[in-house]
């Protein structure tokens, strides 16, 4: 497990550096005055936490500081850390085998790549996996998943581009049942959450899964690009309305993206982030641990020790 953590720390160094820098900068404040809170609010906003959440965090911090009667910036920092940890701690929903995982999200967030990584991961855990290429809309999406399925070595159920995605899923469930696979992962076309007809189509897919997938556990995953700003919250809300979400995967966390949107996303939707993507390979999809994530945001100083 230590290697996971180290790996995450290493890959996310860019992500966390700016935040750490900012947060530790607030340590230089001698007083917990308005300047301190302004600076803090700014650093939270810069990490994409959004205005509302940033203000909420700062208000909560003021309240806790008042209760404790503390004046030390060190202690304020610890309080801040616990506030954020509280916000991202949500119970994860365990899957029971066999399960149908449906992967949804807006265009270009990395759904297909994430599916390949998930398939690899479950294979490594000794599960039998099948994928369904239900993104029948985007040019060559079926081919993309096919290439991945060959690389990973899992079965794929597919049709041609332009086919009815519901029929692909229908076939895939029948096939998964016949072959007795543990996990069926369904790719879906990327769709902007404000396209009502496309969201309705997604609801229809879940109905097909519910109807045909008797005996299967169902698990819906939303894939979110970590570079997305406040729009991610609306994405989360709308997709959660259309298909009940069980978990979130944050991709592209290895950029300099702040990924701060994780915090309002979890705290507002109450849906846990299950994985974060920090690179191109299957090993780069790592389980998200709220406590570790927060620790890492604040874990300054150790980096230099590691380097030496």
């Amino acid at each position, binding site marked *: 497990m230590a290697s996971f953590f180290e790996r995450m720390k290493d890959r996310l160094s*860019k992500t966390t550096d700016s935040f750490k820098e900012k947060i530790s900068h607030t340590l230089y404040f001698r007083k917990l005055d308005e300047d301190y809170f302004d600076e803090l609010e*700014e650093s939270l*906003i*810069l*990490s*994409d936490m*959004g*205005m*509302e959440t940033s203000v909420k965090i700062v208000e909560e911090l003021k309240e806790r500081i008042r209760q404790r009667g503390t004046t030390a910036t060190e202690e304020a920092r610890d309080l801040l850390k616990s506030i954020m940890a509280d916000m991202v701690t949500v119970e994860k929903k365990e899957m029971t085998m066999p399960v149908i995982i449906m992967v949804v999200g*807006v*265009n*270009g*967030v*990395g759904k297909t790549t994430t599916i390949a990584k998930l398939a690899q991961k479950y294979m490594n855990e000794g599960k039998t996996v099948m994928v369904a290429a239900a993104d029948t*809309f*985007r*040019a*060559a*999406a079926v*081919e*993309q998943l*096919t*290439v*991945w399925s060959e*690389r990973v070595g899992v079965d794929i159920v597919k049709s041609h*581009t332009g086919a009815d995605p519901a029929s692909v899923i229908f076939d895939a469930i029948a096939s998964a049942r016949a072959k007795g696979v543990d996990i069926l992962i369904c790719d879906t076309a990327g769709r*902007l*959450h*404000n*396209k009502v007809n496309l969201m309705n189509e997604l609801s229809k897919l879940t109905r097909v899964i519910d109807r045909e997938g008797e005996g299967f556990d169902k698990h819906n995953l939303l894939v979110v*690009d970590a*570079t*997305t*700003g*406040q*729009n*991610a*919250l*609306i994405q989360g809300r709308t997709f959660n309305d259309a298909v009940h979400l069980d978990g979130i995967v944050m991709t*592209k966390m*290895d*950029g*300099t*993206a*702040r990924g701060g*949107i994780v915090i309002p996303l979890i705290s507002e939707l109450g849906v846990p982030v299950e994985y974060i993507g920090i690179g191109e390979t299957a090993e780069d999809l790592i389980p998200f641990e709220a406590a570790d994530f927060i620790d890492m945001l604040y874990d300054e100083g150790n980096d230099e020790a590691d380097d030496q």
Partner: protein
Amino acid sequence: MAFEGLSEKFDNIFSGLKRKGKLDETDIKKAGREIKLALLEADVNYKVVKQFTKSVSERAKGEEVLKSLTPGQQFIKIVNDEMTRMLGGDVQKIDYRRDELNVFMMVGLQGAGKTTTAAKIANLLRKEEKLTPLLVACDVYRPAAIRQLQVLGKELDIPVFALEGENDPVAIAVKAKAYAAENGFDLVIIDTAGRLQIDEALMKELEDIRDRVEPTEILLVVDGMTGQESVNVADEFNKLLDISGVVLTKMDGDTRGGAALSVTYTTGKSIKFIGTGEKLSDIEVFYPDRMASRILGMGDVLSLIDKAQSMVDDERARELEEKMRANTFDLNDFLEQLKQIREMGSFSSLLEMLPGANSKALKGFDMASTDAQSIKTEAIINSMTPKERANPDIINGSRRKRIANGSGTSVADVNRLLKGFEQSRKMMKQMGSMQKKGRKSRFKLPFM
């Protein structure tokens, strides 16, 4: 609540200002803070927001707002002006030369929409500018990316250059350019693999492609929903490649497109196109002023202000201003004002240009009756004698009865008009004395 509320938020800020007859520094500071919050919710980069609010409040503290009779409107105009300016001002067209080989290179993060955008641009320029495009598949990393471009090319009947088995994007790009030159193409659009701006090896590869094929346009494709990070992405790509422009994608979502403001401000490079849908024809030339309205969530206020300004005769406006100061503004002047407003169009059509005109608040508002009201008012004044119009004070009970009969209205209608006129005259008197302290400024119609 982030975006649904934004348009309303701006409405609130602006309508709060519009109600005020005079703005002081506190008002401006308060509005500045509210604008700041609203922009942050729209994902405009924090540093850009700071700079923006700074330049807005500096201008707002100047004479044009403080001394204006309609400070709220002036303030809004400044916000809109500044935003349009920061978005690049005028429309920047794509750069191409006829009878020469134009080479475009698409770059950006993974999933921004480079491949789709490459196809869309090729299609657009073939249709609008009669260029003969060749699409080049240089994304050798993502599975089926080449296939994706080939499918799009086939759909549009645009040739796609791809080299099976060649893993070096630089080599593909170089060969594609030579191929295009030999085969009568005048536009080459190179689709490159998505990459993180911090990935040194892959960024070097883009540099190599650029150095070898010397593109005439390097277009950075940015997801319109990008958050605070957009600044870093744009900055790094621009520093390394000296991009020539930006394409903003997925603008058909409900994003406010704060990335637009951040990207232009950071790089100084203009946005040339926006992607507005999944169809291959869904691409538009970027208009900074429209984007400003979009980010601000307001209607076409600028057009309205321009329209009002063009309709009002400067000479006559100055005369009215004098009258107002001297408190000799009478019903004749009032009638003229009314006519001027009506010349601009019906109230309903004017309201449509206003921010929030589609909001819930206006749903119950009967605009047709407002139009009818102004017709009635005109009729009443027309039934008055010139003497009565110049001296409304002489209009007693029997005169009121006559006027009501003459205009086909009731005495109550006449009373309402006279009362309203008296009130606005008092208001003008106050403003007039306030004006004397200041220097020359233009008189504005009260409805603004």
